């Protein structure tokens, strides 16, 4: 099975994000960067699938040269090959999906696994655009039915289950009010939710090996994709802070406050 995954570069989810004085961008000083947590889950799921159904895992990232770090991370985890789309400057979800479509047409994977959302843009769109533009089926928010909190996490029933003869996959999905199961004809697009798996750490030999794995460079013009953004961010601001509250000494005081001050009980 050949699987294409994405590895977007995003701010570490633990960082404190601040808007710059002009309200046009965020303050970059002191920020650390990581692979989008959902994309790391995508890489992990792909590696588990090819362990049972041998094939290649190709990791794609779009951005400046700094995204090599995230591609190397995916390679160190075990991906076979990296594809870097060299692009500086603004890029929206239609731009990303347009580029990924061209790469899919070149690479011809059986499955594309992306994160359900980027933790910077929080749009939750690219996988669905890509599936529609390819005319493929989509299973968003893929998840395991069981808990992640177990030594046996790897051995439990996965959230993406390859069907007979690797022509179909079944996917468990997190939806409102419960879990949904879909069956998709391959090739297809899957997006990951947090509870699909627990990504492995990159091992030292993995990190060493990643250095010599292939990293192909492409660019939007070469792929024939116009990535001029259709979404313009006109202003960024920080949400108003909640007004400072108080600490109460004990439960009776809390109940009195809730009754007489907040009037919520």
């Amino acid at each position: 099975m050949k699987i294409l995954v994405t590895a977007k570069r995003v701010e570490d989810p633990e960082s404190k994000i601040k808007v710059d004085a002009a309200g046009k961008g965020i303050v970059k000083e002191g920020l650390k960067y990581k692979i989008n947590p959902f994309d790391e889950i995508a890489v992990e799921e792909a590696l588990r699938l090819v362990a049972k159904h041998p094939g290649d895992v190709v990791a794609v990232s779009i951005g400046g040269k700094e995204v090599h770090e995230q591609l190397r991370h995916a390679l160190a985890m075990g991906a076979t090959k990296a594809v870097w789309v060299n692009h500086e400057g603004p890029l929206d979800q239609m731009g990303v999906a347009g580029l990924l479509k061209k790469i899919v047409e070149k690479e011809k994977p059986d499955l594309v696994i992306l994160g359900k959302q980027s933790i910077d843009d929080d749009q939750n769109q690219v996988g669905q655009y890509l599936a529609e533009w390819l005319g493929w089926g989509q299973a968003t928010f893929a998840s395991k039915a069981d808990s992640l909190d177990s030594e046996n996490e790897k051995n439990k029933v996965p959230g993406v289950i390859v069907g007979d003869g690797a022509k179909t996959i079944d996917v468990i999905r997190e939806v409102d009010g419960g879990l949904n199961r879909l069956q998709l004809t391959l090739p297809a697009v899957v997006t990951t939710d947090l509870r699909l798996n627990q990504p492995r750490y990159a091992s030292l030999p993995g990190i060493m090996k990643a250095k010599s794995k292939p990293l192909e460079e492409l660019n939007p013009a070469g792929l024939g994709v116009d990535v001029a953004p259709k979404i313009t961010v006109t202003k960024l601001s920080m949400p108003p802070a909640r007004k400072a509250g108080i600490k109460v000494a004990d439960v009776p005081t809390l109940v009195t406050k809730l009754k007489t001050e907040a009037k919520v009980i």
Partner: protein
Amino acid sequence: MPTVLVVVEAQPDGKLKKATLNAITAARALGDVHAVVLAKDATALAAEVKDYVKVVHAGSAAHVEHYLAETWAPAVAEVAKAISAEWVGAAATQQGRDLMPRVAAKLNAAMASDIMAVNGTTLTRPMWAGAVIAEVTLSTPVKAFTVRTTEFALAEKAGGAGEVKAFAPAPVTSPTKFVEFKEVKSARPELTEARIVVSGGRGTKGDFKEVEALADELGAAVGASRAVCDAGWQPNDLQVGQTGKVVAPSLYVAAGISGAIQHLAGMKGSKTIVAINKDGEAPIFQVADYGLVADLFKALPELRAAIKAAK
């Protein structure tokens, strides 16, 4: 006035999901609102919606019975084209999040997810787990959006009933098949609709008895942090936060939750926030109106008894 098409969502029992009414309020700020209902037989749901909009497009067909993006997106796009809709949107529920980008792709529309405000044609939406609020504009002829339901009131009925137009969605062959839906049934109110939410975090160590007992005393919904859902202590559906549900009840009680930004993203719009945590330095206290530094296993039963006594 531009035309706005809103996709109507049903609850598992087939009745109107309230979130759709929040989406209609947002849509009214953009133009004349039409709605599209898709079901095996769309008549009853269309009748529920018609008083809120100008026209309901009621699409009845066997192939749209179980929601699938692959079968619904073509039907929604078909209506959007027929009425020359400039905007197409839905509530930012799991269904809306799954469907709308696929509809947008069909219409070559750019999309803004989770919009919190509408000002002319400028949309406001959260980024970086709500640490940043962005104002965005979309430059494609057709534009798509999903609506953060907590930021818009439920729509009131419009004066005069709207028109219902039945249509038959064109058949499509879907590469995806619906297999099953395992509903997690709860006797408690729905998290996103409850007036009071009591949430537990890792501090509960998986023992939710006291969280649930307080919730039941208050007639509240139960929520949870990611740590709790990942551990399988509570169903996924109860996760509050950036990547879970967004809630804004009049009272939110957080017990044994540290207050990571990803959790705050889902509850900091609540009217009154109470935090119970044994660590006085926990970041949750920075957003709490009333903070109690205490062991939750002691404080929650006391709180329940005191609330009962105060009734």
